[in-house]
């Protein structure tokens, strides 16, 4: 019960970043594009008529605290513009951005400096390091800007460098480091400030595929620990699917779809999004929770072995999963074992006598699920992080889910 309540409060918490009707128009006299004659025209038409370029059009987004939020889209779709608006490296033409309830579009330059120092860390595609400073001084740069004394900022920077695996490189200059290592310095610099929100504009785009994958893995690990709000720009679908809790897809300055990785891949809003996700393997996005079924027969430990046996026989089963009162999975009970319990006179099904089974969490992706399912003769139970039974997955479920034609699509 209390568990449920907690989950609910997390779900309904106010979003940390709220973007409302945000526009950015580059060029002279940009406001005129917002007039009612021009604002409905396409990006190309506006550019032809006025010479202004629409960087972002009517963006509405909400990002929750601790969310790993991906902005994805082709080059020129406005991803960098949007990220830079969040920290006002680019100022919006109209609209509002609230962060932690504060309207940052209204801030004066003094407030803005303070806000940037307190709230943000940013990582850039080409690292944006200062070549004349050592790795340590680079990592400590944000703290220096804040005015921290030397000892304190070096201590924090060292810690941060250690987090990204750069211990021992403090005295080198960025120019003598590989791309992957330079980006680690960039990340260390952002983390040293302990910011609430991390902005990352295509941080891994310049790296070799292998290094890139390694950095992604490490970022996932890091995020598990740190739980920052991350806005992450990429044009690589696989990166987006691997990292994101939520993905917003942009085209020509507009957000065309927002959703979980799974939603984006399985229910693309339009051809543009579909084209984007066409080579996404469902095995990488579909999760156990989306393909599982409720168990046909579920035995309750407190109801006792007799009821259990009746249930099994009625459904023609030889075994079934057993849960306790709080719906926690205890194990599998085979018919023979239950018969033995009745002989021994148990009034409840004792947990010790049940067969323990492998379970998976609801967010396990198909790719990881498949080997487990094929290895076991039983359906695989799906349990949440508290061990509560949610449903079952079988090989049939998996094959159904990755078969190419989906009924829902042709009907819808």
């Amino acid at each position, binding site marked *: 019960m209390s568990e449920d309540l907690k989950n609910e409060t997390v779900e309904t918490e106010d979003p940390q970043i709220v973007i409302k009707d945000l526009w950015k128009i580059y060029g002279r006299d940009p406001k005129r594009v917002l007039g009612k004659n021009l604002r409905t025209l396409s990006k190309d038409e506006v550019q032809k008529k006025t010479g202004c370029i629409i960087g972002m059009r009517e963006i509405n987004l909400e990002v929750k605290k601790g969310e790993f939020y991906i902005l994805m889209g082709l080059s020129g779709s406005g991803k960098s513009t949007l990220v*830079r608006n969040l*920290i006002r*490296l680019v100022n919006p033409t109209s609209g509002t951005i609230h962060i932690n309830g504060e309207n940052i579009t209204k801030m004066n330059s003094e407030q803005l*400096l*303070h*806000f*940037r*120092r*307190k709230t*943000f*860390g*940013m990582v*850039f*595609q*080409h*690292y*944006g*390091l*200062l*070549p*004349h400073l050592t790795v340590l001084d680079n990592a400590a*740069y*944000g703290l*220096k*800007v*804040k005015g921290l004394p030397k000892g304190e900022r070096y201590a924090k920077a060292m810690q941060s460098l250690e987090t990204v695996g750069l211990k021992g490189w403090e005295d080198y*200059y960025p*120019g*003598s480091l590989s791309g992957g290592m330079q980006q680690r310095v*960039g990340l260390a*610099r952002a983390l040293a*400030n302990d910011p609430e929100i991390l*902005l990352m504009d295509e941080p891994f785009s310049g790296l070799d595929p292998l290094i890139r994958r390694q950095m992604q893995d490490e970022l996932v690990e890091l995020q598990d620990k740190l739980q920052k709000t991350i806005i992450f720009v990429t044009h690589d679908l696989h990166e987006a699917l691997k990292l994101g809790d939520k993905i917003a897809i942009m085209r020509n300055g507009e957000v065309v779809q927002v959703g979980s990785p799974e939603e984006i891949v399985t229910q693309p809003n339009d051809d543009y999004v579909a084209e984007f996700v066409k080579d996404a393997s469902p095995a990488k996005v579909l999760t156990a929770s989306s393909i599982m079924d409720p168990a046909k027969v579920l035995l309750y430990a407190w109801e006792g072995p007799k009821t259990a046996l009746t249930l099994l026989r009625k459904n023609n089963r030889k075994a079934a999963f057993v849960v306790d009162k709080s719906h926690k999975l205890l194990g599998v009970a085979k018919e023979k074992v239950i018969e033995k319990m009745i002989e021994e006179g148990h009034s409840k099904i004792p947990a010790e006598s049940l067969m323990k089974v492998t379970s998976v969490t609801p967010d396990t992706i198909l790719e990881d699920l498949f080997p487990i399912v094929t290895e076991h003769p039983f359906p695989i139970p799906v349990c949440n992080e508290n061990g509560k039974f949610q449903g079952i997955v079988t090989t049939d479920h998996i094959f159904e889910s990755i078969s190419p034609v989906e009924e829902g699509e042709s009907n819808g």
Partner: protein
Amino acid sequence: MVDFPEIVNIPLAKWIDKAMDWLLLNLDPFFDAIGFIILKVVLAFENLFLFIPWFVLIPLAGLAGWKLVGKKRSGVTFMILLFLVGSFGYWELAMRTLSLVIASVFFSLIIGIPLGIRMARSDRAQAIMKPMMDAMQTMPSFVYLIPALMFFGMGKVPAMFATIIYAVPPVIRLTNVGIRTVDKEAVEASKAFGATSRQVLFDVQLPLAKPSIMVGVNQTTMMALAMVVIGSMIGAKGLGMEVLLAINRIEVGRGFEAGLSIVFLAIIIDRITYSFSKTKDK
């Protein structure tokens, strides 16, 4: 031949003369003050270079060639060149010329670098200053001598005034270009961490623009040297005056020696200032 109609004669020359008269009349104390400061600085440098004996300065130049330019051979070359200047009998005049150049460059940088920064930070400033500097650089150099003469009379000060004005554009231009071409993400990173515009300037823009600015310093110095030589026409003592005298008296040998001394100075100054623009990698 058809004469140009006299009726459309625009009296630009007259207007400029009027403006000069007005400036002279009203801003005299101002020019006096400027002249005073310029004189003080150049005298300080002169005293310094005339005080250092040749047998100290020549090894110093050798050391500069070795340590700054990076080759022992440059150091040796510098020492030989300076020794030759001395052996022509032009040591003192060379030191006077050097002082004029260094003092002029000093002022050019004080004026030029802030203007270059200003220009880099505002497109409007750039739009205004760019054509002005183009004009300044195409103007024949001795034209600058005329207003300098009017404001300051004859001597070192007007020569330096003309030199400062003539030599300042390259450092402005290259400071501007240097700052504008600094890695955009490095600047954004600095701002993203909440740096003030002052912090962005001193932490990022100036350090990263340094090689470019130093090329500007080098060009400004070379132009200053050229102008100081011309400045001897209005009475700045130095190697230039020797050349001028040699021309008047048609003494080819003497002119050649003085001219060669200028070239030697130029080589040394050029190599040393140019070495500043090379970033030494660790």
